């Protein structure tokens, strides 16, 4: 399967570990993710009261690239655009739906983008998790060479994969897609009641304290439930839950740090793709001691 792929800014900087592990894991499963040319910001900016349309221009430009790739034969009749970052997924799917449902808005945007070809409204923005579900988690299980054994995982979803309902990839109140995936990888699933609670998102810039409290409750609840690690698909969640643990520990002395994995890192690990593809060194809380203790990584590596 050859599919257009949109990385977004984080995946080229702070979330390299997400991109590298995703590309490798996908390729193991026969999915070739072809990065779209000349991509720009996904458009995750606030709308203006006076203009609710302007911020859809950037995402629509990215969607135009998918049309181009099909025309140029880079992909073969594949109008789905694959994303990894939850925020990119949410923003671009939102825009794709908005213009597909409102032809007048699409006209306006097409008229505004006078140097682009017209967007025809037929690109579907998807998240890698959806592609995996479509393949069937049983089939993904077949690719596992290094089952995750008794690693106790609490899948964390955040909001961008689930809400609003029209965009979300699973039941917004009771998602299971992450648990289904990690179960296929051989992990033990722990249900964290805080799996959908907001990580604090951009407040991490203006009100660090708020994020620290939220991240603390998410992580400590996972710990109480018996989890050894939690997972995410969102670079911003990862930053808030992973990078902020130092500050959490300062504020809450009894806090125990907990590794935060990208879902793709666990796939790469379970598929036996090697540490260069897992890129655990990119995580803030080093997960390697835990993985060694579970014999999922070789000693001394």
């Amino acid at each position: 399967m050859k599919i257009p792929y949109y990385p977004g800014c984080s995946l080229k900087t702070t979330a390299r570990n997400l991109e590298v592990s995703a590309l490798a894991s996908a390729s193991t499963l026969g999915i070739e993710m072809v990065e779209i040319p000349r991509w720009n910001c996904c458009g995750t900016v606030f709308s203006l009261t006076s203009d609710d349309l302007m911020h859809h221009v950037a995402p629509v430009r990215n969607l135009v690239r998918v049309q181009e790739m099909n025309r140029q034969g880079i992909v073969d009749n594949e109008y789905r655009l694959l994303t990894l970052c939850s925020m990119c997924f949410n923003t671009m799917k939102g825009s794709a739906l908005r213009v597909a449902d409102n032809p007048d808005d699409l006209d306006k945007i097409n008229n505004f983008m006078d140097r682009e070809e017209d967007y025809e409204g037929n690109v579907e923005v998807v998240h890698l998790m959806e592609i995996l579900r479509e393949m069937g988690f049983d089939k993904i299980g077949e690719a596992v060479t290094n089952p995750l054994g008794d690693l106790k995982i609490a899948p964390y979803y955040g909001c961008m994969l689930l809400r609003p309902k029209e965009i979300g990839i699973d039941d917004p109140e009771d998602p299971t897609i992450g648990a289904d995936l990690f179960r296929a990888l051989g992990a033990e699933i722990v249900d964290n009641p805080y799996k959908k609670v907001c990580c604090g998102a951009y407040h991490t810039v203006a009100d660090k304290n708020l994020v620290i409290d939220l991240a603390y409750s998410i992580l400590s609840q996972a710990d109480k439930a018996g989890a050894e690690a939690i997972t995410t698909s969102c670079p911003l969640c990862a930053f808030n839950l992973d990078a902020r643990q130092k500050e959490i520990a300062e504020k809450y002395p009894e806090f125990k740090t907990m590794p935060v994995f990208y879902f793709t890192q666990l796939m790469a690990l379970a598929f036996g793709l090697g540490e260069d593809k897992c890129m655990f060194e990119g995580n803030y809380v080093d997960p390697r001691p835990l993985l060694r203790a579970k014999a999922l990584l070789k000693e001394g590596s």
Partner: protein
Amino acid sequence: MKTGKIGVYVCHCGGNISEVVDVKAVAAFAEKQTDVVLVRTNEHMCSELGQKQVADDIKEHKLDKVVIAACSPQFHEKTFRSVLAKAGLNPYVLEMANLREQCSWPHFDFPEFATRKAKDLTDTAIAKARLDEPLEKKTMPIGKRVLVIGAGIAGIQASLGLGDAGFKVHLVEREPSIGGKMAQLSRTFPTEDCSACILSPKMADVPANPNITLLTNAEVENIDGYLGNFEVSVLKKPRYVDMNKCVTCRSCEASCPVKVPSEFDEGMTMRKAIYVPFDFAVPYKHIIDESQCLRLTKGGKVCGLCVKACPHDAIDFDQKPERVKFTVDTVIVATGYDTFDAATKKVYGYGKFENVVTALQMERMVVRGAEGNPIRKMGQKIAFIQCVGSRDEQVGNEYCSRICCMYATKLSQLLKRSDPSRDVYVFYTDLRAFGKGFEEYYKRAQNTGVKFLRGKPAELFENPDTKKIIMKIEDTLSREILEFEFDLVVLSTGLVPNKGTEPIAQILKLSKSPDGFLQEAHPKFKPEDTLIEGVFLAGTVQGPKDIPDTVGQASAAALRAVRLMNQEAYTIDPLAAFVHEEACDGCGLCVSPCPLNAISLVSKLAKVNQTLCTGCGSCIASCPRNALDLQCYSNDQLAAQVKAALASKKKNETRILVFADDMTAYRLADNVGTAKMTYSADSLIIRVPSGSRVTPKLMLQAFAAGADGIFIGDSEQKSSPYPHSAAVMKENVSTVANILSESGIEPDRVRFFEFVTVMLGGFVKQIDGLADYCKKAKPIPAQTRKALGKDINNRLFAEDRKESIQV
């Protein structure tokens, strides 16, 4: 009876008409019309004097038709019909020309036009009167037998009322005992009477009433027929216990090894596979749960301990389902409600967290606690979450369940009273204390220290160590974010339609309102009736209600049934479809358009069941041979009215015909006139029973005869006495629009609207809009009109339809 001696009476209405309309000119005009033998004017036709004049004239001048040109028929049609009847004339040979509400009042500023229109209206009424036939009211024999489906408090109340009044009641209950949900409740709000104590005497009265036949553990399988003749088939499931032998000594229960969660205690206690539903069950006899009993599920000689234990030899595993058939005259549906399934609202963790319960479970806990038999510990800190499954579009329930605010208030009171140190919170969306004594009760609850906070938690969490429930919530009045830990959280679940209602609704062809509850015939004046004659609704089957409202509606439903049954025969207006048999070729095209299944083919002829037909007229357009017709609004009459209405039209004048349904559009036009709102005097209103009565043929005839525009006003679908009418009307209008367009005439000349009677401005806008449009459009050439009038049938029934006629 097609020719006649018509008497015409033109009323001044004390100036209401005569100050605008030249009454003398109208009278002079009427005198010139064929068949008119007598014309009089009167200051007040409706006065005793006026009435006497008509009666005297009928006798003296041998009048056989009467036209009253006065006010709207909605005021005095009945009056003059009885005048005719008293004078020995058939009451249905009366016509009224609406000179006040639909002429002098809306056109008060253009007296000349008003006088011209008054003549047209009178002419139209005379044209109809000429073709009036004496009609008899429909009479049907009716007995005194009722089927009541469902024996909750609604069904019990209705049955006892009817039984006491001497009517024979068949009361059918699906469960092994009567009593319904009310039997499970602790106390009732706001008076805090013990629910079981006030209900159980009523339950005991049911089998004691000689007029009530009670069938429990039984389901209605089928109902055929109509008012006065409903044939009912009930499946009585086996009880496996001989009710005549069983003395409810409970020996069998002690012997039974199978434990099952008790329905009565909402699954919180266990009962046996052979059991008595509850302590005040009626009938107070054992029953074997066939889905749980070892012998009934595994077969053969398994178990059988109860057989040995029973000292009276009452256990009978050979009982088979039994079909009971009987005939009744009316039906009352009282199938009640179910509580919303709290588990579907996943965020509250019902079924997952042990300390989240439903309000009905709380009722049982309170009852058992008061009996000294507590089911479980309730804790010190208790929260109620309101609107679980109500006012929640996420679960598809937009409506308010009406009772939850008050039952939560009541439960909070009972909890507080049994232990005043308890901390009780109620988290509400809006607190609705709408009933008698409710607001006072709510205030009292606040004073006892129950904390009412406005806010709805998004999600509940369980503390994994203590199993207490963590709730984060915004108090939307103080805008504070609060966090609590509760020992117990109670979900105030709303009411949803009972699953058992669905098959009954299908059998009886009852319609549902958007909330899924059954639809009443009229939300204000017929809240107990359905659109099916002789079928009534009682209680929560029609929508969420508290006990007093349920009981009130049940008594009212009984009265509505009595109203029909308390006479030897049942009479209704002769408004009904009929078949000109000589024209019918038995093609059967009219069978499916009737939503009431009133038309059938009997030996290759269409036959209309006069009892079922309610006279909407929507079948008539389906007949390619003009064989179908409607009494009171016949094809010939409407054609004659159309012709008369257009007779005075001069060159360069515009005329639009407004067909207005009797229920809404006609009354709306009256209301517009009463409000002295004006609209184009080029319009003339013709009364029809429904928008669907206006056939494409009639519309084309009207255009051929000189109409410039046609407007059909019908009742808004959801409040219409004929809910299907609007759809038929739309189809007819689009048929005509297509034909107009093919003939080079603007299709926009034919329009329709679904009204409610308060849309005064909307009516004016619609009529003026069409009148303006027609005035500005190029006149329809006489040639084109002529062509329209030819082979109307060929245009209407195109090749494909002709084929289906042959089939």
